[in-house]
């Protein structure tokens, strides 16, 4: 974990230099932290907008439950995709879901050399589609599977105690500006 923090700190520092090159008047303070998105010169996740409803990334960043997920999203470099116009349906694992993995797995996945592997896992949690919970019920009823950004299909089932996707229960549903977040407490690992 220490290593990761260091990487972020370095990133923040180099970003500062880039910023000061772009426009002298846009001075950033040196308070930039690892969790804050540097606002200039990056992709769409750097757009300043306090008016629109929050998007997937902004909601995830605002909740402690998704701390690990957010770190993983950044390590995999997919934060711009999560603010894209989409629409996106994200099955968002809480921190506890990551804790269920064998010791050392998360640390391992966060290593730069495992970036694409991590991205693949994350993409298995995102459907490029608009699926509110009501629509997921319909998908279950009609036996339609969900096509995920990883290329895998996930099965949706409606059981007595709720909706299940890929065998894990949806605990909560949040509408966001670019789609839906469904909270889960298990990772949806890609089959291959």
């Amino acid at each position: 974990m220490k290593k990761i923090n260091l990487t972020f700190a370095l990133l923040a520092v180099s970003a500062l230099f880039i910023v000061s090159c772009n426009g002298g008047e846009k001075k950033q303070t040196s308070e930039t932290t690892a969790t804050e998105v540097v606002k200039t010169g990056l992709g769409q996740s750097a757009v300043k907008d306090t008016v629109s409803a929050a998007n997937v990334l902004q909601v995830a960043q605002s909740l402690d439950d998704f701390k690990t997920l957010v770190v993983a999203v950044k390590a995999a470099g997919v934060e711009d995709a999560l603010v894209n116009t989409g629409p996106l349906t994200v099955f968002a694992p809480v921190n506890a879901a990551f804790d269920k993995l064998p010791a050392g797995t998360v640390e391992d996945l966060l290593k730069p050399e495992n970036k694409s592997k991590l991205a693949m896992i994350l993409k298995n949690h995102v459907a490029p589609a608009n699926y509110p919970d009501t629509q997921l019920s319909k998908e279950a009823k009609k036996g339609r599977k969900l096509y995920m950004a990883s290329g895998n299909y996930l099965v949706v089932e409606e059981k007595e105690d709720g909706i299940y996707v890929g065998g894990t229960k949806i605990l909560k549903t949040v509408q966001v500006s670019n789609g839906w977040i469904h909270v889960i407490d298990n990772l949806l690992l890609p089959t291959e």
Partner: protein
Amino acid sequence: MKTIFKSLLALTIVSTILSSCGNGGDKGKQGALSGSAAEKVYVAPGEHDEFYAFVSGGFSGQLAVYGLPSGRLFKVIPVFSVDAEKAYGFNEETKPMLNTSHGFIPWDDSHHPDISQTAGELDGRWVFINGNNTPRIAKIDLTTFETTEIIEIPNSAGNHSSSFVTENTEYVVAGTRFSVPYPQRDMPIKEYKGNFKGALTFISVDPKDGTMDIKFQIMMPGFNYDLSHPGRGKSHGWFFFTTYNTEEANSLLEVNASQNDKDFIAAINWKKIEEYVNNGGGTKAPTNYAHNVYSDETHSATSTMKKEILIVNPSDVPGAIYFLPTPKSPHGCDVDPTGEYIIGNGKLAAELTAHSFTKMLAAIEGKKFDGEAYGIPILKYEDILGGVVKQPGLGPLHTEFDGKGYAYTTFFISSEVVKWKLGTWEVIDRKPTYYSVGHLMIPGGNSRKPFGKYVLAMNKITKDRYIPTGPEVTQSAQLYDITGEKMELLLDFPTIGEPHYAAGIPAELIKERSKKIYKLEENKHKYVVKTEAESKVVRTGNEVHIYMTMIRSHFSPDNIEGVQVGDKVYFHVTNLEQDYDVPHGIAMIGAQTSELLIMPGQTETFVWEPKQVGVWPFYCTDFCSALHQEMQGYVRVSPKGSNVPVTYTLDGDAIGAE
């Protein structure tokens, strides 16, 4: 030792980064390469322009938004002409914006944008612009960049000496170019003299919400009122209008209106007239003109016909109006930032005349008149003259100011911009334009506080400046750097329609207030639905109202049956998105109107009158999302009198069903 080595390395890295930035992080364009015109207009990808330029579209009837110095076009704001792209004048909500006493008028000729001011400085709240042909003044809200109000000007024709604002936007002013019979009536044209009048209209602007209302109209002699500008600073409270055709000719004006050695600038003490009117002065007269207002809450416009106007007869307010003799059919009428000099650009004159406001007041005080015209005292040219720029060029038209003591005047015939000095009247520099320049614009150049960095020249003739496009070629604007003693041509860029005139303002005064979305919860449109579950189809006689929603990436409902040939089908469509820059569009096959382009939180309506039996698709026209191509639906059209019931579904289920 190791530590020292490390810090040395770090220092080297830092200094490398710094030196690669040019002047220590300063903008590279101000560095060693500052001599290059390309560097000065280059706005790097992702960077913002320093100024907004609101450039009128002339005969396009619209107002275009460009960035300076790049010359990039950002938006064409529909004002007086219909715009199928934005459904302006096509959807039910904006049709009332183009209503007039002559009915629905789908086009006009937009000329002089002017940005609202507070204490003589640009405040960036609104931009006003005049429609020449069917006289109107429009107001554009600079938070939404949409036309939100249009007021018709009665008793006026060729609304040209408009739409300039006073120092605190107390009034936006409209002067008639063509005098017309007052009141309008069936009469011989040759009886023009004495019977035709020139109306100067003062429209009050509500300081809170900008609502326009005609306060009074001064019924002046039947001259042509060409351009105008307000006094500022010491001359605040006055307004100056150039006139030509003081001969009162009604035919072959190019000869007959060029007979007098001097025409006039009309100096109007509007404060005095305002006081007269506030004390019950003036005559209420019957009239008929449209006042159209667009609401951001209902997302709809209303048009109200006004039936009364307050007319002021100049001779009833002595001491309020004077004529300043000005050589040879003056066109532009420009007031310097201090308010002392009123520049008359005599378009046929060999020199440029600057009247002195101080001398004008002294001459009025001393009652030194050179006769009168229709009861209005004429001051003596020599008594009020501040100075003359001798042999500056051919065909002077307009002057703007840099706030550093210099003025810049355009010359149509000699195709040039000439820089000269206020007070000494000496010519400092001249640069050619390509070709035949009309107006020029310095951001804030007709206010107390100009931003004298660039001047934009707007040309009337283009010829060989760009790769050709057949007989019709784009018109052209040219940007000059005016920070040095000599002007430097930086950039040509094409414009929409005719770049008649422009108003510029530092971007920072506007851009932070620019609206991103309309709040769905604040939407008070008569036919709004705020959730998919509320979307529905209602038949009333042969009218079918579809209350439709749109969100990435579907319509609700998207399958509609029970519509019949001969029905009038209203699509009331609400964009449920609350995310910046996610508009949706909708178009219906065979609809004799335009698409709708609906911003987040907004509702718009189009009408479709199906003429053929069948199943007809509609679709989203704005590439909204990854599943944009899936955003579509069908309407089943049955023969007239069919018993197919009205049904509407999404994904095979009735709307609202879980």
